[in-house]
């Protein structure tokens, strides 16, 4: 663990500013962002709460799902009325897709609905784990990249799979820290660290974060950013948790840039041992 963290100090996947100040930005598929928190827009009480929580999170990218229009209520309020696509970068996802074909169809529709190529691909295995189905993910990624999409990809914490996805042309690698919506936190910090060593595109923890400290841990490991939804939406007070996440991401990022002190098995006093009264 310590060794892995030391190595990351040398290998900052996306480059970083000297002082961790406002210049500390990251870039994916040619777009540059300041916030290192990407938030989902699902599972909120209503659209008003969605808008308020997202504003409080400081996120610049939001994930959105693609679903059938309710034809019996065509004038129902829409997400765009509360989360302005001119202000936030919409990142359409393929949540709920269990085959490569469904994921590809979904993102082609998303591109037509919104007119952009930057997407989040996830092909899931069955409940209760909804674990990334890597065979389906590879298949969909290949078709989407050929079709001109810029694919940020949700994946297993598998270093070989992640490298292969990067080599195929995926623009961000996003392994899970724990199953989607589980709130178990980053259960695989050592593997996340080891995967990151070999990835040069942005590397995000996507899924698993349950509370602010989990997000901070992901950032301290050296992740470029963190993607989460339920940790905010399912908190008792989502807007307050959104603020907490904003601070946790910033704190974790600064701690990573600062470089943590080494761990030692024993005390090392902070006050001098000389000049003591006798």
């Amino acid at each position, binding site marked *: 663990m310590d060794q892995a963290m030391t190595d990351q100090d040398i290998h900052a996947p996306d480059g970083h500013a000297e002082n961790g100040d406002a210049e500390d930005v990251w870039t994916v598929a040619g777009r540059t962002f300041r916030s290192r928190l990407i938030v*989902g*827009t*699902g*599972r*909120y009480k209503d*659209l008003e709460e*969605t808008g308020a929580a997202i504003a409080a999170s400081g996120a610049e990218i939001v*994930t*959105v*799902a*693609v*679903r*059938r*229009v309710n*034809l019996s209520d*065509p*004038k129902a309020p*829409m*997400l*765009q009325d509360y989360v302005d696509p001119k202000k936030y970068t*919409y990142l*359409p*996802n393929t*949540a709920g897709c269990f085959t490569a074909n469904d994921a590809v*169809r979904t993102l*082609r*529709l*998303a*591109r*037509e*609905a*919104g007119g952009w190529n930057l997407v989040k691909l996830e092909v899931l295995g069955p409940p209760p784990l909804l674990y990334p189905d890597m065979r389906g993910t590879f298949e969909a990624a290949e078709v989407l990249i050929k079709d001109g999409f810029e694919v940020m990809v949700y994946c297993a914490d598998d270093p070989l799979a992640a490298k292969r996805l990067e080599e195929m042309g995926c623009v961000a690698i996003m392994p899970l820290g724990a199953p*989607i*919506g589980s709130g178990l936190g980053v259960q695989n910090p050592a593997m996340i660290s080891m995967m990151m060593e070999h990835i040069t595109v942005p590397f995000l923890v996507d899924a698993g974060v349950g509370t602010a400290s989990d997000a901070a841990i992901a950032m301290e490991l050296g992740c470029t950013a963190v993607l*989460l*939804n*339920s940790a905010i*939406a399912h908190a008792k007070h989502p807007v307050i948790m959104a603020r907490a996440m904003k601070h946790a991401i910033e704190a974790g990022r600064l701690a990573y840039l600062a470089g943590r002190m080494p761990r030692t098995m024993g005390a090392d006093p902070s006050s001098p041992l000389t000049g003591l009264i006798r």
Partner: protein
Amino acid sequence: MRDVLTLLLNGENRQFETPARGPLSVLGLLTELGLDMRKVAVERNEEIVPRSRYAETWLASGDQLEIVHFIGGG
């Protein structure tokens, strides 16, 4: 008497009358459904219908259509 089209629309069989002046287009269908065209996307028989071609994409009985939009998601 006008022709009646049966479309599989978002998984449900729905019937529509063909307009008096000719066949029903995707544009005609979206207008009849009262949808905001800037916020939806349409797939016909698993092929995307580009927005620029709504007016000239004619529908036939048995067509499968998916009309989608963005909603909250993680």
